[in-house]
């Protein structure tokens, strides 16, 4: 049975009251998957998975970096194997948007074709950009029955401003990197 209701009474509603009940966006975080789970989903016929850490050469690290961002140090990949054949790999990356940090994984087959892109974790507010005022306000307007811990999930945000442009850009860079580093057909 469909039901929905506002949490503020019509006679009291106003932007000031909404603001009084506000919680900081920085408490919004979600964990969706691990890179291992993404690898198992993408390569169902694999018999073994091996973590391979790749240190890109300086020029490659620069090509992998977000424009204006820091170059990648170590790239975490997971190779999927069936016997001694290499089926493909999962590459783990992380992008920072205006408000959010997104860790994601790209599954690529042995030819470098993208099989899936999955979000691993999402969190609002990163580093020094978390505004102090919003941290201070985090206990404003909450009742004891409605505890919100920092780091707990706020799953339903409507009108979120986040965009996956950064993830899409990151996937393009990883695909380009993978094309230059073809997987060996046989596991070492």
């Amino acid at each position, binding site marked *: 049975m*469909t039901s929905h209701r506002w949490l503020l009474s019509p006679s009291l509603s106003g*932007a000031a009251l909404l*603001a009084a009940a506000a919680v900081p966006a920085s408490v919004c975080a979600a964990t969706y998957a691990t890179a291992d789970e993404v690898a198992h*989903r993408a390569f169902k016929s694999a018999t073994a998975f091996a973590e391979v850490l790749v240190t890109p050469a300086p020029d490659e690290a620069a090509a992998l970096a977000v424009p204006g961002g820091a170059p990648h140090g170590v790239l975490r990949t997971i190779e999927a194997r069936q016997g001694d054949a290499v089926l493909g790999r999962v590459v783990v990356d992380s992008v920072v948007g205006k408000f959010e940090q997104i860790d994601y994984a790209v599954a690529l087959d042995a030819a470098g074709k993208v099989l899936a892109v999955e*979000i691993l974790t999402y969190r609002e507010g990163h580093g020094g950009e978390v505004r102090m005022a919003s941290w201070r306000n985090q206990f404003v307007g909450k009742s004891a029955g409605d505890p919100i811990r920092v780091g707990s999930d706020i799953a339903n*945000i409507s009108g979120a401003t986040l965009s*996956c442009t950064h993830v899409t850009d990151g996937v393009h860079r990883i695909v380009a990197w993978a094309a230059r580093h073809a997987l060996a057909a046989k596991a070492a």
Partner: protein
Amino acid sequence: MRQRARPLLGTLVEVRAQGASATAFDVAADAAFDAIAQVHALMSFHDAGSDLRRIARARAGERLVVHPHTAAVLRSAQRWARASGGAFDAGCAPRAVEEGWLPAPADGTPPGPLPFEDALELEGHAVQVHAPVWLDFGGIAKGYAVDLAVAKLRRAGVRTGAVNAGGDLRVFGTLEETVHVRSPFDAAQLWPVAALKDSACATSASGAVARRGADGADGPAPRSVTVLAPTACAADALTKIVWQQGELASELLRKARARALVVRADGSVWQS
């Protein structure tokens, strides 16, 4: 609660389920993500192979067979356009191209002045083109995709869960969930505005929509419009109508069993 997320529809699409095994959830979520990706491919204005671009290339008198999903969204868009006296306008792609939000299609037939709901006539999955139209389903396709994903989850045996596509969200089953809306005045603040059970919610906030809607608005322009409705498709379409019409949309909201929350630029709030 199990959850997965993928980048789709230009945003982060999150699928959640309660009470499903890990394996059952994986299969169900894959079906939901596939359906959303299909809607995206069919109704993208950027992709020259999409149904929307095929319609944009069509000349007056042509008849096109489109995918059932495209036909369903067009039928729904036409219904909302007629019900709102044209406030819901899916024929707005030319304006979006002019403003630089959408790329100009090199292969498009220049659109005419006829409203899209009159220029295109649906017969089953066939579109009779009476006059060239450039459709933009930005105001409705995301909601449709969320409803479709919910249907896929249910068909796969998920009884309770939620789908959230960057703020167009629907919860189903026994869960009652609180919906937060990002403050239009401070993006670091979330407002807990509504409780949903077996219902949907969509928000349009200032940005592209504000620029479109500000012209001719009566009184202070809205900064954020949230609509609660039985389906995400209805909630999505109604945010655009309420943005244009404000309290004048009360009757339409009531008929659609929907409610709206409008936060205006001066900080005043209206809710139905």
